[in-house]
């Protein structure tokens, strides 16, 4: 299991477009993927779940990856968060 804290850096936050991109990346991997914000944890493979967090710029999220391909999965996803979902 890999756990990593990330910060939302883009101005618009984790809105619909990034949320949809996140679940599309997640769907390509077998491992389970959870995102939590202030103890509120959702399944990172569900777009409704990801959007429920309504994460704004500056908020801190914990990403959890658990499964056979967690290393590659975590690598791609963390980069995507650090790049501000390509919106910087």
């Amino acid at each position: 299991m890999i756990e990593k804290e990330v910060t939302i850096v883009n101005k618009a936050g984790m809105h619909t477009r990034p949320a949809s991109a996140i679940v599309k990346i997640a769907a390509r991997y077998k491992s389970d993927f959870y995102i939590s914000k202030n103890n509120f944890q959702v399944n990172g493979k569900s777009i409704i779940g990801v959007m429920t967090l309504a994460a704004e710029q500056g908020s801190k999220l914990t990403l959890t990856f658990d499964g056979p391909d967690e290393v590659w999965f975590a690598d791609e996803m963390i980069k995507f968060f650090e790049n501000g979902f390509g919106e910087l």
Partner: protein
Amino acid sequence: MKDQLRNIKEIRKEFITVDFFYKECMNRFKIKKISGKDIPSKKVITDQDIHRPGLALSGYFDLFTYKKIQIFGNTEIEYLRKITREDRIKNLNKFFSYDVPCIIITDNNDAPPDLKELADKFNVPLFKTSYPTTKFSYFISDFLDDQFSSQIVLHGSFVDVYGIGLLFSGKSGIGKSEIALDLIERGHRLVADDVVVLSKKAETVLMGSGTSLVEHFMEIRGLGIIDVKSIFGIRSIRYQKRVEVIVELELWDQNRTYERTGLDHKNIKILDVDIEFIKLPIFPGKNITVIVEVIALNYLCKHYGYNAAQVFKKKLSRKIHENKLKEKDPRNIEQINRTIEYFEHDFE
């Protein structure tokens, strides 16, 4: 399901503000604000119990649970009226030197002299209700119990099927939302999809609802986001439901054994509440919706005292017992008994 539960953190509110408490409760429990000032935003309630400060008002402050909502019933009011002004002011000053969240006077009593002035001076909100103390305490306790209840957030779909709360869990993409949609189409009611918030109500009841952001929006893969309420109307939704059965969906696995009789009741503990747990194997072409409706109806039958698996078990035992007592046919021929021994003339 068990994997999911292992990773989940329990959430519990640490406090509610007095302002929030007042807004939620003023109409519900007939509470009126009688202090002249606005409620200070830093006033919070951190304890789910309430306190009647009779002894404190008489000057005994050892073990005074000042963090609880302070209820002034007939006794407290009458006592404050009877004692001398000097004692009253002395005791109330001491009382207000503790950081009490708020005071509620019950039974439509008027505030005794000096109480309102001192409450205003110390910035403690003062309320009043027309309900008598016991009844009011019951209402408030239930409200606070709910506010401070343990909660978890689960990934799943939650539907009311014939009045039974069925919570579907399973891997992402297995078809939980599609089953929910199919059920809605057949007249059942959606509570929440994808993100389900479960709270413990009392000690033995688990309640579920969606989130205020998502309400009855759901995602259908390939389609996108839809709003169930606007498509199917008011009869297709509800905001809260008791969770009665958890149905875990998984792809049919040849190496697994699945429940065949229904005699071995399986339960799962969520927030320490026992919930019936059914593992349902799915494969293409299997009509899950109908099976799910039968799960709900069978649960209802059991609730009203008819357990099909048990009834059948008894029937079989009785038959075996009869066979044992029966004289054996020396020719060793076993007869199969039809439901109807004699087909009369109904041949169509």
